[in-house]
């Protein structure tokens, strides 16, 4: 499932909404999520917290991949060293290809 937030800022102001959307997707049984962040210009620690909690919620049985990340979001990922944990792809197609294989065979996952 590909989720594409249309908000420019993922911060405290939309934290609850954002969390609901992501967790709902997991609850509905989607275990391969792609978060397309190509519209997101600003991510703060609460937005990041939602992403972390979603990865945790998926556990070993699923994967949250990221694509289309912009400069500031990339900066936040590297600042937190989560770029070493998350699966990040340059665009949707590459992400889709990577996730086409079974979860356990796809790129190694970090541990949160």
């Amino acid at each position, binding site marked *: 499932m590909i989720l594409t937030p249309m908000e420019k*800022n993922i911060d*405290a*102001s939309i934290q609850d909404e954002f969390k609901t959307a992501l967790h709902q997707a997991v609850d509905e049984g989607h275990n391969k999520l792609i978060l397309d962040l190509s519209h997101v210009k600003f991510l703060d*620690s609460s937005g990041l*917290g939602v992403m972390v909690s979603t990865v945790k919620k998926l556990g070993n049985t699923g994967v949250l991949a990221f694509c289309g990340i912009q400069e500031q979001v990339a900066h936040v990922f*590297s600042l937190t*060293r989560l770029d070493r944990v998350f699966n990040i792809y340059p665009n949707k197609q590459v992400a889709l290809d990577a996730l086409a294989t079974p979860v356990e065979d796809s790129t190694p996952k970090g541990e*949160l």
Partner: protein
Amino acid sequence: MEGDLYIRLGYTMDAMYRSITRHLAYSLGVEPSRASQRDIYLALSYTVRDRLLEKMLKTSRRYEESGSKRLYYLSMEFLIGRSLANNLRALNLYDKVAEALELLGTDVETICDQERDAALGNGGLGRLAACFLDSMASLHMPGFGYGLHYDYGLFEQDISNGYQREKPDSWISEAPALQVERTDAACLVPMYGRIEETKDKWGRSNPSWQGWNLVTGVPYDIPIAGHGGVTVNPLRLFAARPSTEFDIKIFNEGDYLRAVEQKIESEKISKILYPKDSYEAGRELRLIQEYFLVACSLGDIVRTYEKDHRDFNKFPEKVAIQLNDTHPALAVAELMRILVDQKWVPWEKAWDITNRTIAYTNHTLLPEALEKWPEHLLAKLLPRHLQFIYDINQQFLDRVVSLWPGDMDRMRSMSIVEEGPPRQVRMANLAIVGSHSVNGVSALHTDLIKTALVPDFFEMWPERFNNKTNGITPRRWLCVANPGLHDLIEEAIGPGFVTDLERLRDLEPFATDSAFCERFLQVKKANKERLKDVIFNTAVVEVDPLSLYDVQVKRIHEYKRQLMNVLGIIWEYLALVEDGVEPACPKTYIFAGKAAPGYWAAKQLIKLVHNVGNTLEDDPKVKGLLKVAFVPDFRVTLAERIIPAADLSQQISTAGFEASGTGNMKFALNGALTIGTLDGANIEISKEVGRDNIYIFGLTAYEVERMKRKGSYKPRRLYDNNPMIKRVVESLASDRFCKREPGLFAWLKDYLLADNEMFFHLADLEAYVKTRERASKEYVNKTLWAKKAVLNVARVGYFSSDRTIRQYAEEIWDLLPVLPTEDEKIGSLEYTPGDPVPIATAKDW
């Protein structure tokens, strides 16, 4: 294309006039014929800024094309003072603007006087940074100042009944005409939060800094023009802004006020410059300020580097970072964090890069001024940086242990983390460990760093320690401050010496040329007349320009010993009124300086100076032979008025306490003779000008140190055995100088007579007074005095900040100038677009 870009700018008188009137109308919305002096000042500033920006863009292009190494000077303070007159002289526009302003019915001095000082510093350290910027631009070096864009600079000093009162100093109204905002280069600074232990995709430990708050750093560039106006470098100052305009969540909850409060909270970071000696007051905010500067600067430096480089192998070859004191020492941890966490550089490699890039200048030997931050504060504010500090310390201590196995005392004293309680992080140790160069700012100071401050570090890394004696820019401290003397020197030895100050040596033969000396004294007299008016208008004291102007202007601090100066005045006063001994010549003692708001003893000294001055003024027996004036609100602009008028310069700190001093250099360059101790750069000044041309007295640093170590200083013995000293001290204990506030200065007797009194006031007093007497006697002999004064000017070329910067560049930074092309030098300097219409006067406009 480039020609088109800059086509509107001319540098003739006509062009200046047009630009000023255009800015009056279209930037300020003011009809030129009705413009106030303030309006004209602003319009002229914008006019100059246009040209500075043109030069800055061209300089930037030149640096980019050369691919040369860049130097970043990180400093919490840049005491730039006023800019307009300095820029006009740098761009060779002063005379043309003077003519243009005449057409507007005013004059250039009046207009330049409208500018408020940018007081973004406390004293020597900040002014040094400003002088360095001037020198780097004048030497065509890619050197950039990075600092904070404080809303409020150092407080404005008011005097009420002899007491200092502090008022906020908002220079920000000046700023728009000086700077450009660079929102495109804004950076996000994380702070607070926690470390989550995670595992990366390869199963390795991966500490993750999460839960931080973000603050935005918005850069403002102030163009700094080098001499000749060809090279213009930016001084980049960062202002703190919220990362989003308002916290929308709070805003949406309807709590508008709380949302605004949050915004204000972020902006607090760059709101105010902390006065020195008052860091304790806002401890956490001060640490945040230091980190904010470091994070914004490093972010910007790395981003600039990455424009041309794909990896960090060449970082130390392309980037040099100088830490102005320990205030930006977190740069060591921040650069490590960026390289290791964000750029995936292995730790050892990152450490090598960091160490080869950063250098540290020490500015103080005072133990209380050596910064330490509680570990818990760092853990709260910068949890990830603290981890890096621990790792750096561990690696460093492993090395110490391998060199000195079992030497626990050494390990304890060298450790970056000081055992508690409370455990604290020693910023000087962090800076030394993280830098490839550690320098002091005068020969004596560097020696004391090696032998007394951090001898263990010197033993470990002797090659790391070096001296860079401070300097001052002759453009500001001669050309702008004392144009009369500049012109006289130029007439005597020809042009060019302001960029090659050692050429002042050519002036030596003129020291015995009576016609030259006569004119030299005339220039001094004119400067003294000018200062007389300033003193009358601000301190309401009428002084005689024929008297000896004996000047001590600097921050008020016990170690600088303004108190000893006052004791000397009281000594002379009592000799006059009780013994009938007149001074050799009428004397005016001029003081100026600010005391940190929380520094009680320093504030009492200001009151004492006033009260002694009033007592002398009211005593008919003094007959005007002795005067004391305290000129309020000491700042760069006031220094520019006072220093050229001084006959005698007081540099009387307790030996071993003043790192360098730069005031001493400014006075000597302006033809004042120094009376001073063998402290800081006084020693080197003495060597340069010759012992016959300076008045040296007092204990040496090593004598002071020995007495301290032995605990052998007993001032009461001096008091008991010397009736003159006793009389001076007793006069303070009595109410002679505080009739309306009995007992006000009684504490000074206990203070001065305490065993091992920190600053050795009475130990040096007699020698000081005798040396002053000698100076006064020599002052009466005008030929002798002029000769000595001229020799001082002739022999202080070494103290140009150009020399200092060349030494930093060659010996620490490995930085080369990027010289302008011939085209750039002639460039559009004289270009004026053809305009058939004759210029309109303001009236016709």
